Protein backbone atom coordinates (compact mmCIF):
# COMPACT_ATOMS: atom_id res chain seq x y z
CA UNK A 1 0.00 0.00 0.00
CA UNK A 2 1.33 3.43 -0.91
CA UNK A 3 1.93 5.86 1.90
CA UNK A 4 -0.59 8.70 1.62
CA UNK A 5 0.68 12.18 2.45
CA UNK A 6 -0.17 13.35 5.96
CA UNK A 7 -2.61 16.02 4.77
CA UNK A 8 -4.80 13.32 3.21
CA UNK A 9 -4.91 11.28 6.38
CA UNK A 10 -8.56 10.78 7.45
CA UNK A 11 -7.90 11.93 11.02
CA UNK A 12 -6.26 15.13 9.82
CA UNK A 13 -9.05 15.84 7.33
CA UNK A 14 -11.63 15.12 10.02
CA UNK A 15 -10.06 17.45 12.59
CA UNK A 16 -9.56 20.16 9.97
CA UNK A 17 -13.20 19.95 8.85
CA UNK A 18 -14.43 20.23 12.42
CA UNK A 19 -12.18 23.21 13.09
CA UNK A 20 -13.33 24.90 9.87
CA UNK A 21 -16.94 24.25 10.72
CA UNK A 22 -16.68 25.56 14.28
CA UNK A 23 -14.80 28.62 13.02
CA UNK A 24 -17.46 29.30 10.41
CA UNK A 25 -20.23 28.90 12.98
CA UNK A 26 -18.63 31.42 15.33
CA UNK A 27 -17.97 33.76 12.42
CA UNK A 28 -21.57 33.51 11.21
CA UNK A 29 -22.81 34.35 14.69
CA UNK A 30 -20.23 37.06 15.21
CA UNK A 31 -21.01 38.70 11.88
CA UNK A 32 -24.71 38.36 12.41
CA UNK A 33 -24.50 40.00 15.84
CA UNK A 34 -22.19 42.69 14.48
CA UNK A 35 -24.42 43.50 11.52
CA UNK A 36 -27.50 43.43 13.70
CA UNK A 37 -25.90 45.85 16.16
CA UNK A 38 -25.06 48.30 13.38
CA UNK A 39 -28.48 47.91 11.88
CA UNK A 40 -29.97 48.50 15.28
CA UNK A 41 -27.90 51.66 15.66
CA UNK A 42 -29.08 52.79 12.24
CA UNK A 43 -32.68 52.03 13.10
CA UNK A 44 -32.36 53.96 16.34
CA UNK A 45 -30.88 56.81 14.30
CA UNK A 46 -34.15 56.91 12.41
CA UNK A 47 -36.03 56.81 15.73
CA UNK A 48 -37.74 53.54 14.97
CA UNK A 49 -38.40 50.79 17.50
CA UNK A 50 -35.67 48.12 17.04
CA UNK A 51 -37.80 45.46 18.77
CA UNK A 52 -39.98 45.49 15.73
CA UNK A 53 -37.09 44.02 13.73
CA UNK A 54 -34.91 42.01 16.09
CA UNK A 55 -36.95 40.66 18.99
CA UNK A 56 -37.27 37.02 18.08
CA UNK A 57 -35.09 36.77 15.02
CA UNK A 58 -31.63 36.78 16.65
CA UNK A 59 -32.20 33.66 18.66
CA UNK A 60 -33.95 31.86 15.87
CA UNK A 61 -31.11 32.59 13.49
CA UNK A 62 -28.51 31.37 15.98
CA UNK A 63 -30.58 28.29 16.78
CA UNK A 64 -31.10 27.35 13.14
CA UNK A 65 -27.44 27.92 12.34
CA UNK A 66 -26.38 25.77 15.28
CA UNK A 67 -28.73 22.97 14.31
CA UNK A 68 -27.48 23.02 10.73
CA UNK A 69 -23.87 23.01 11.84
CA UNK A 70 -24.59 20.16 14.26
CA UNK A 71 -26.14 18.19 11.39
CA UNK A 72 -23.11 18.78 9.18
CA UNK A 73 -20.87 17.78 12.07
CA UNK A 74 -22.82 14.59 12.54
CA UNK A 75 -22.51 13.86 8.83
CA UNK A 76 -18.76 14.36 8.89
CA UNK A 77 -18.50 12.15 11.96
CA UNK A 78 -20.45 9.37 10.26
CA UNK A 79 -18.32 9.58 7.12
CA UNK A 80 -15.22 9.53 9.28
CA UNK A 81 -16.31 6.44 11.20
CA UNK A 82 -17.31 4.77 7.95
CA UNK A 83 -13.99 5.54 6.30
CA UNK A 84 -12.03 4.26 9.28
CA UNK A 85 -14.03 1.04 9.16
CA UNK A 86 -13.50 0.65 5.43
CA UNK A 87 -9.80 1.21 5.90
CA UNK A 88 -9.67 -1.43 8.61
CA UNK A 89 -11.55 -3.90 6.44
CA UNK A 90 -9.22 -3.13 3.57
CA UNK A 91 -6.21 -3.86 5.77
CA UNK A 92 -7.75 -7.08 7.04
CA UNK A 93 -8.52 -8.13 3.51
CA UNK A 94 -5.00 -7.31 2.39
CA UNK A 95 -3.73 -9.37 5.27
CA UNK A 96 -6.08 -12.18 4.33
CA UNK A 97 -4.89 -12.23 0.73
CA UNK A 98 -1.30 -12.42 1.93
CA UNK A 99 -2.04 -15.24 4.32
CA UNK A 100 -4.28 -17.07 1.93
CA UNK A 101 -1.61 -16.88 -0.76
CA UNK A 102 0.84 -18.24 1.77
CA UNK A 103 -1.52 -21.06 2.69
CA UNK A 104 -1.95 -21.98 -0.97
CA UNK A 105 1.62 -21.53 -2.10
CA UNK A 106 3.21 -23.50 0.72
CA UNK A 107 1.64 -26.88 -0.17
CA UNK A 108 2.10 -26.19 -3.89
CA UNK A 109 5.79 -25.45 -3.34
CA UNK A 110 6.22 -28.63 -1.36
CA UNK A 111 4.39 -30.71 -3.98
CA UNK A 112 6.47 -29.24 -6.77
CA UNK A 113 9.74 -29.85 -4.94
CA UNK A 114 8.97 -33.50 -4.29
CA UNK A 115 7.66 -34.13 -7.79
CA UNK A 116 10.82 -32.62 -9.28
CA UNK A 117 12.96 -34.63 -6.89
CA UNK A 118 11.17 -37.80 -7.95
CA UNK A 119 11.69 -36.88 -11.59
CA UNK A 120 15.44 -36.42 -11.12
CA UNK A 121 16.42 -39.02 -8.56
CA UNK A 122 15.79 -42.66 -7.86
CA UNK A 123 15.03 -42.78 -4.14
CA UNK A 124 14.79 -45.90 -1.98
CA UNK A 125 11.24 -47.21 -1.57
CA UNK A 126 10.84 -46.30 2.11
CA UNK A 127 11.77 -42.69 1.42
CA UNK A 128 9.49 -42.61 -1.58
CA UNK A 129 6.60 -43.69 0.63
CA UNK A 130 7.47 -41.06 3.22
CA UNK A 131 7.52 -38.27 0.64
CA UNK A 132 4.38 -39.56 -1.06
CA UNK A 133 2.64 -39.25 2.29
CA UNK A 134 3.89 -35.67 2.55
CA UNK A 135 2.48 -34.97 -0.88
CA UNK A 136 -0.88 -36.48 0.03
CA UNK A 137 -1.11 -34.34 3.14
CA UNK A 138 -0.20 -31.28 1.05
CA UNK A 139 -3.02 -32.12 -1.34
CA UNK A 140 -5.34 -32.43 1.65
CA UNK A 141 -4.20 -29.07 2.91
CA UNK A 142 -4.89 -27.49 -0.47
CA UNK A 143 -8.31 -29.11 -0.67
CA UNK A 144 -9.11 -27.78 2.79
CA UNK A 145 -8.20 -24.23 1.80
CA UNK A 146 -10.17 -24.40 -1.42
CA UNK A 147 -13.22 -25.78 0.38
CA UNK A 148 -13.00 -23.03 2.96
CA UNK A 149 -13.12 -20.36 0.28
CA UNK A 150 -15.95 -22.08 -1.60
CA UNK A 151 -17.96 -22.53 1.59
CA UNK A 152 -17.41 -18.91 2.46
CA UNK A 153 -18.77 -17.82 -0.91
CA UNK A 154 -21.77 -20.09 -0.49
CA UNK A 155 -22.56 -19.09 3.06
CA UNK A 156 -22.04 -15.40 2.41
CA UNK A 157 -23.92 -15.43 -0.85
CA UNK A 158 -27.03 -16.49 1.13
CA UNK A 159 -27.59 -19.18 -1.46
CA UNK A 160 -26.76 -21.92 0.94
CA UNK A 161 -29.64 -24.32 0.74
CA UNK A 162 -28.67 -26.78 3.37
CA UNK A 163 -30.21 -30.15 3.83
CA UNK A 164 -31.15 -30.29 7.45
CA UNK A 165 -31.80 -33.59 9.13
CA UNK A 166 -32.67 -34.39 12.71
CA UNK A 167 -29.81 -36.35 14.16
CA UNK A 168 -28.29 -37.32 17.43
CA UNK A 169 -25.49 -34.79 17.85
CA UNK A 170 -23.44 -37.00 20.17
CA UNK A 171 -23.31 -39.57 17.45
CA UNK A 172 -22.34 -36.97 14.85
CA UNK A 173 -19.45 -35.75 16.99
CA UNK A 174 -18.27 -39.25 17.84
CA UNK A 175 -18.39 -40.34 14.24
CA UNK A 176 -16.53 -37.21 13.15
CA UNK A 177 -13.74 -37.91 15.66
CA UNK A 178 -13.53 -41.53 14.49
CA UNK A 179 -13.42 -40.66 10.81
CA UNK A 180 -10.84 -37.94 11.25
CA UNK A 181 -8.70 -39.68 13.83
CA UNK A 182 -5.63 -39.20 11.60
CA UNK A 183 -5.93 -35.42 12.02
CA UNK A 184 -6.00 -35.71 15.80
CA UNK A 185 -3.56 -38.57 16.18
CA UNK A 186 -1.22 -36.55 18.42
CA UNK A 187 -3.95 -35.26 20.66
CA UNK A 188 -6.35 -36.59 23.24
CA UNK A 189 -10.05 -36.11 22.61
CA UNK A 190 -12.76 -36.94 25.13
CA UNK A 191 -16.45 -36.83 24.34
CA UNK A 192 -18.86 -36.82 27.26
CA UNK A 193 -22.64 -36.66 27.26
CA UNK A 194 -23.74 -35.24 30.62
CA UNK A 195 -27.44 -35.54 29.87
CA UNK A 196 -27.49 -39.30 29.21
CA UNK A 197 -30.18 -39.20 26.52
CA UNK A 198 -29.98 -38.83 22.75
CA UNK A 199 -29.69 -35.17 21.85
CA UNK A 200 -31.57 -34.52 18.66
CA UNK A 201 -30.81 -31.39 16.68
CA UNK A 202 -31.64 -30.20 13.21
CA UNK A 203 -28.27 -30.08 11.47
CA UNK A 204 -26.77 -29.90 8.03
CA UNK A 205 -24.12 -32.64 8.25
CA UNK A 206 -21.44 -31.23 5.87
CA UNK A 207 -21.72 -27.76 7.42
CA UNK A 208 -21.64 -29.14 10.92
CA UNK A 209 -18.55 -31.17 10.13
CA UNK A 210 -16.88 -28.02 8.88
CA UNK A 211 -17.68 -26.39 12.21
CA UNK A 212 -16.21 -29.33 14.12
CA UNK A 213 -13.13 -29.41 11.93
CA UNK A 214 -12.45 -25.69 12.39
CA UNK A 215 -13.00 -25.62 16.14
CA UNK A 216 -10.99 -28.76 16.80
CA UNK A 217 -8.05 -28.04 14.51
CA UNK A 218 -7.81 -24.57 16.08
CA UNK A 219 -7.66 -26.20 19.50
CA UNK A 220 -4.67 -28.31 18.56
CA UNK A 221 -3.03 -25.83 16.22
CA UNK A 222 -2.85 -22.99 18.71
CA UNK A 223 -1.52 -25.26 21.36
CA UNK A 224 1.97 -25.34 22.77
CA UNK A 225 1.30 -27.73 25.65
CA UNK A 226 3.05 -30.65 23.95
CA UNK A 227 0.05 -32.83 24.62
CA UNK A 228 -3.04 -31.18 23.13
CA UNK A 229 -6.31 -32.16 24.73
CA UNK A 230 -9.91 -31.37 23.79
CA UNK A 231 -12.83 -32.13 26.10
CA UNK A 232 -16.17 -32.12 24.32
CA UNK A 233 -19.18 -32.08 26.60
CA UNK A 234 -22.92 -32.07 25.94
CA UNK A 235 -25.30 -30.42 28.36
CA UNK A 236 -28.98 -29.62 28.07
CA UNK A 237 -30.62 -26.47 29.32
CA UNK A 238 -34.40 -26.15 28.82
CA UNK A 239 -34.92 -26.63 25.12
CA UNK A 240 -31.30 -25.91 24.27
CA UNK A 241 -28.17 -27.92 23.97
CA UNK A 242 -24.80 -26.59 25.03
CA UNK A 243 -21.97 -28.20 23.14
CA UNK A 244 -18.68 -27.29 24.78
CA UNK A 245 -15.15 -27.61 23.41
CA UNK A 246 -12.54 -27.07 26.08
CA UNK A 247 -8.87 -27.18 25.12
CA UNK A 248 -5.53 -26.78 26.86
CA UNK A 249 -4.19 -24.47 24.18
CA UNK A 250 -2.77 -20.99 24.05
CA UNK A 251 -5.95 -19.32 25.32
CA UNK A 252 -7.26 -15.89 24.47
CA UNK A 253 -7.04 -12.43 25.93
CA UNK A 254 -10.27 -10.84 27.15
CA UNK A 255 -10.31 -8.32 24.31
CA UNK A 256 -10.02 -11.10 21.74
CA UNK A 257 -13.06 -13.14 22.80
CA UNK A 258 -15.52 -11.34 20.53
CA UNK A 259 -13.15 -10.18 17.81
CA UNK A 260 -12.03 -13.69 16.86
CA UNK A 261 -15.33 -14.29 15.08
CA UNK A 262 -14.85 -11.31 12.79
CA UNK A 263 -14.03 -11.93 9.18
CA UNK A 264 -10.30 -11.95 8.47
CA UNK A 265 -9.49 -11.23 12.12
CA UNK A 266 -6.41 -12.92 13.46
CA UNK A 267 -5.06 -12.94 16.97
CA UNK A 268 -1.68 -11.28 17.06
CA UNK A 269 0.54 -13.99 18.46
CA UNK A 270 3.93 -12.47 17.86
CA UNK A 271 6.40 -14.57 19.73
CA UNK A 272 5.33 -18.16 19.46
CA UNK A 273 2.75 -18.33 16.70
CA UNK A 274 2.26 -21.21 14.35
CA UNK A 275 2.11 -20.25 10.69
CA UNK A 276 -0.70 -17.79 10.17
CA UNK A 277 -4.12 -18.95 9.08
CA UNK A 278 -6.55 -17.03 6.94
CA UNK A 279 -8.68 -15.42 9.62
CA UNK A 280 -11.73 -17.17 8.20
CA UNK A 281 -12.15 -20.30 10.33
CA UNK A 282 -14.10 -18.88 13.25
CA UNK A 283 -15.99 -16.48 11.01
CA UNK A 284 -17.22 -19.54 9.12
CA UNK A 285 -17.98 -21.34 12.38
CA UNK A 286 -20.11 -18.46 13.61
CA UNK A 287 -21.99 -18.39 10.32
CA UNK A 288 -22.60 -22.12 10.44
CA UNK A 289 -23.95 -21.78 13.97
CA UNK A 290 -26.18 -18.91 12.83
CA UNK A 291 -27.54 -21.02 9.96
CA UNK A 292 -28.43 -23.62 12.60
CA UNK A 293 -30.25 -20.93 14.61
CA UNK A 294 -27.75 -21.23 17.40
CA UNK A 295 -25.17 -19.12 19.19
CA UNK A 296 -21.48 -19.43 19.93
CA UNK A 297 -19.32 -17.84 22.54
CA UNK A 298 -15.68 -18.09 23.52
CA UNK A 299 -14.31 -18.05 27.03
CA UNK A 300 -10.78 -18.13 28.32
CA UNK A 301 -9.08 -17.46 31.60
CA UNK A 302 -6.38 -15.67 29.64
CA UNK A 303 -3.35 -16.31 27.48
CA UNK A 304 -1.84 -19.72 28.13
CA UNK A 305 -4.90 -20.92 30.05
CA UNK A 306 -6.72 -22.74 27.26
CA UNK A 307 -10.07 -21.72 25.87
CA UNK A 308 -13.65 -22.96 25.77
CA UNK A 309 -16.03 -22.57 22.86
CA UNK A 310 -19.70 -23.13 23.63
CA UNK A 311 -22.14 -23.76 20.81
CA UNK A 312 -25.76 -23.43 21.84
CA UNK A 313 -28.27 -25.11 19.54
CA UNK A 314 -32.04 -25.55 19.76
CA UNK A 315 -33.03 -29.11 20.69
CA UNK A 316 -35.61 -31.06 18.71
CA UNK A 317 -38.30 -32.99 20.54
CA UNK A 318 -38.06 -36.70 19.98
CA UNK A 319 -41.47 -36.81 18.33
CA UNK A 320 -40.42 -34.30 15.69
CA UNK A 321 -38.61 -35.98 12.89
CA UNK A 322 -37.57 -35.63 9.31
CA UNK A 323 -36.13 -32.81 7.31
CA UNK A 324 -37.30 -29.24 7.57
Amino acid at each position, binding site marked *: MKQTPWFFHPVFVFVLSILALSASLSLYIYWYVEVSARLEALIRGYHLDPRQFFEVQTWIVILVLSILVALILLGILLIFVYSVRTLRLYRLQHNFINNFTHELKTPV*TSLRLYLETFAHHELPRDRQIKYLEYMLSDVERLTGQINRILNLARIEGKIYEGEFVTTDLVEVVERFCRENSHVFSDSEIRVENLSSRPLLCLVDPPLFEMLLMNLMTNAIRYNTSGHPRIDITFETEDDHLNLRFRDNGMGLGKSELKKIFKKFYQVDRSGNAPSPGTGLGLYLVENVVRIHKGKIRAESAGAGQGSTFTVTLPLQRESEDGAA
Partner: protein
Amino acid sequence: MTLMKKPSPRRILVVEDDRHIAEALKLNLELQGYEVDIADTGTAGLRKWKDLAPDLIVLDIMLPGIDGLSILRSVRLEDEQVPILILSARSASEDRVKGLTYGVDDYLTKPFELNEFLLRVKRLLKRATWAKGPAPGEADADSGP
Protein backbone atom coordinates in the same frame (compact mmCIF):
# COMPACT_ATOMS: atom_id res chain seq x y z
CA MET B 1 50.95 -23.01 -3.15
CA THR B 2 51.15 -25.22 -0.14
CA LEU B 3 48.00 -23.87 1.43
CA MET B 4 45.14 -25.86 -0.05
CA LYS B 5 41.52 -25.35 0.95
CA LYS B 6 40.02 -28.13 2.98
CA PRO B 7 37.58 -30.13 0.87
CA SER B 8 34.96 -29.93 3.61
CA PRO B 9 31.40 -29.68 2.27
CA ARG B 10 29.79 -26.24 2.24
CA ARG B 11 27.31 -25.79 5.04
CA ILE B 12 23.85 -24.38 4.31
CA LEU B 13 21.31 -23.26 6.88
CA VAL B 14 17.67 -23.56 5.81
CA VAL B 15 15.32 -21.44 7.90
CA GLU B 16 11.84 -22.62 6.94
CA ASP B 17 8.84 -23.42 9.12
CA ASP B 18 7.08 -25.78 6.76
CA ARG B 19 8.50 -29.20 7.53
CA HIS B 20 7.77 -30.63 4.08
CA ILE B 21 9.51 -27.84 2.20
CA ALA B 22 12.44 -27.80 4.61
CA GLU B 23 12.96 -31.55 4.21
CA ALA B 24 12.67 -31.37 0.43
CA LEU B 25 15.31 -28.63 0.32
CA LYS B 26 17.57 -30.53 2.69
CA LEU B 27 17.22 -33.70 0.65
CA ASN B 28 18.09 -32.00 -2.63
CA LEU B 29 20.92 -29.91 -1.24
CA GLU B 30 22.41 -33.01 0.36
CA LEU B 31 22.13 -34.85 -2.93
CA GLN B 32 24.29 -32.02 -4.32
CA GLY B 33 26.88 -32.68 -1.64
CA TYR B 34 26.15 -29.85 0.77
CA GLU B 35 25.80 -30.16 4.49
CA VAL B 36 22.39 -28.89 5.55
CA ASP B 37 20.84 -27.76 8.82
CA ILE B 38 17.22 -26.86 9.29
CA ALA B 39 15.77 -24.25 11.66
CA ASP B 40 11.99 -24.13 11.90
CA THR B 41 11.58 -20.84 13.74
CA GLY B 42 13.21 -17.44 13.54
CA THR B 43 14.79 -17.80 16.96
CA ALA B 44 16.26 -21.20 16.12
CA GLY B 45 17.49 -19.74 12.84
CA LEU B 46 19.43 -16.97 14.55
CA ARG B 47 20.86 -19.38 17.11
CA LYS B 48 21.98 -21.86 14.47
CA TRP B 49 23.49 -19.10 12.35
CA LYS B 50 25.64 -18.09 15.33
CA ASP B 51 26.55 -21.66 16.32
CA LEU B 52 27.22 -23.11 12.89
CA ALA B 53 28.48 -20.13 10.87
CA PRO B 54 26.99 -21.50 7.63
CA ASP B 55 28.33 -20.62 4.17
CA LEU B 56 24.84 -19.73 2.96
CA ILE B 57 21.43 -19.08 4.48
CA VAL B 58 18.16 -19.98 2.78
CA LEU B 59 15.50 -17.91 4.47
CA ASP B 60 11.71 -18.03 4.48
CA ILE B 61 9.99 -14.71 5.18
CA MET B 62 6.81 -15.72 7.02
CA LEU B 63 8.15 -17.47 10.08
CA PRO B 64 6.68 -17.97 13.53
CA GLY B 65 8.39 -15.81 16.12
CA ILE B 66 10.99 -13.57 14.55
CA ASP B 67 10.19 -13.13 10.86
CA GLY B 68 12.63 -13.62 8.00
CA LEU B 69 13.30 -9.94 7.39
CA SER B 70 14.24 -9.36 11.02
CA ILE B 71 16.64 -12.29 10.84
CA LEU B 72 18.09 -10.83 7.68
CA ARG B 73 18.69 -7.50 9.43
CA SER B 74 20.24 -9.10 12.49
CA VAL B 75 22.58 -11.17 10.35
CA ARG B 76 23.56 -8.19 8.20
CA LEU B 77 24.42 -6.14 11.28
CA GLU B 78 27.18 -8.61 12.07
CA ASP B 79 27.98 -10.22 8.75
CA GLU B 80 27.86 -8.36 5.46
CA GLN B 81 29.20 -11.24 3.43
CA VAL B 82 27.35 -14.46 4.10
CA PRO B 83 25.10 -15.05 1.07
CA ILE B 84 21.39 -15.08 1.88
CA LEU B 85 18.68 -16.39 -0.44
CA ILE B 86 15.11 -15.53 0.42
CA LEU B 87 12.26 -17.89 -0.40
CA SER B 88 8.96 -16.11 -0.11
CA ALA B 89 5.33 -16.68 -1.02
CA ARG B 90 5.04 -12.94 -1.59
CA SER B 91 5.83 -11.90 -5.11
CA ALA B 92 4.94 -8.18 -4.96
CA SER B 93 7.85 -6.03 -6.06
CA GLU B 94 7.67 -3.99 -2.85
CA ASP B 95 8.35 -7.14 -0.84
CA ARG B 96 11.34 -7.97 -3.00
CA VAL B 97 12.61 -4.41 -2.78
CA LYS B 98 12.31 -4.57 1.00
CA GLY B 99 14.38 -7.74 1.04
CA LEU B 100 16.99 -6.28 -1.25
CA THR B 101 17.17 -3.10 0.82
CA TYR B 102 17.98 -5.13 3.89
CA GLY B 103 20.81 -6.76 2.02
CA VAL B 104 19.58 -10.05 0.63
CA ASP B 105 21.58 -11.52 -2.26
CA ASP B 106 18.84 -13.33 -4.11
CA TYR B 107 15.07 -13.72 -3.96
CA LEU B 108 12.95 -16.63 -5.15
CA THR B 109 9.16 -16.66 -5.13
CA LYS B 110 7.32 -19.79 -4.08
CA PRO B 111 6.57 -22.06 -5.84
CA PHE B 112 9.94 -22.15 -7.59
CA GLU B 113 11.70 -24.60 -9.84
CA LEU B 114 14.02 -26.92 -8.00
CA ASN B 115 16.76 -26.71 -10.58
CA GLU B 116 16.71 -22.93 -10.55
CA PHE B 117 17.01 -22.97 -6.78
CA LEU B 118 19.99 -25.34 -6.86
CA LEU B 119 21.74 -23.32 -9.55
CA ARG B 120 21.24 -20.10 -7.64
CA VAL B 121 22.61 -21.69 -4.49
CA LYS B 122 25.66 -22.89 -6.40
CA ARG B 123 26.23 -19.48 -7.92
CA LEU B 124 25.86 -17.67 -4.61
CA LEU B 125 28.38 -19.95 -2.95
CA LYS B 126 30.82 -19.46 -5.80
CA ARG B 127 30.48 -15.69 -5.66
CA ALA B 128 30.99 -15.79 -1.91
CA THR B 129 34.38 -17.47 -2.37
CA TRP B 130 35.41 -14.67 -4.75
CA ALA B 131 34.24 -12.02 -2.34
CA LYS B 132 36.37 -13.51 0.40
CA GLY B 133 39.29 -12.86 -1.90
CA PRO B 134 42.02 -15.23 -2.97
CA ALA B 135 43.25 -17.72 -0.42
CA PRO B 136 46.24 -16.59 1.66
CA GLY B 137 49.45 -17.07 -0.26
CA GLU B 138 47.75 -16.36 -3.58
CA ALA B 139 47.32 -12.69 -2.86
CA ASP B 140 49.59 -11.54 -5.64
CA ALA B 141 48.35 -13.94 -8.26
CA ASP B 142 44.91 -12.43 -8.62
CA SER B 143 43.89 -8.82 -8.10
CA GLY B 144 40.15 -8.90 -7.65
CA PRO B 145 37.95 -5.81 -7.41
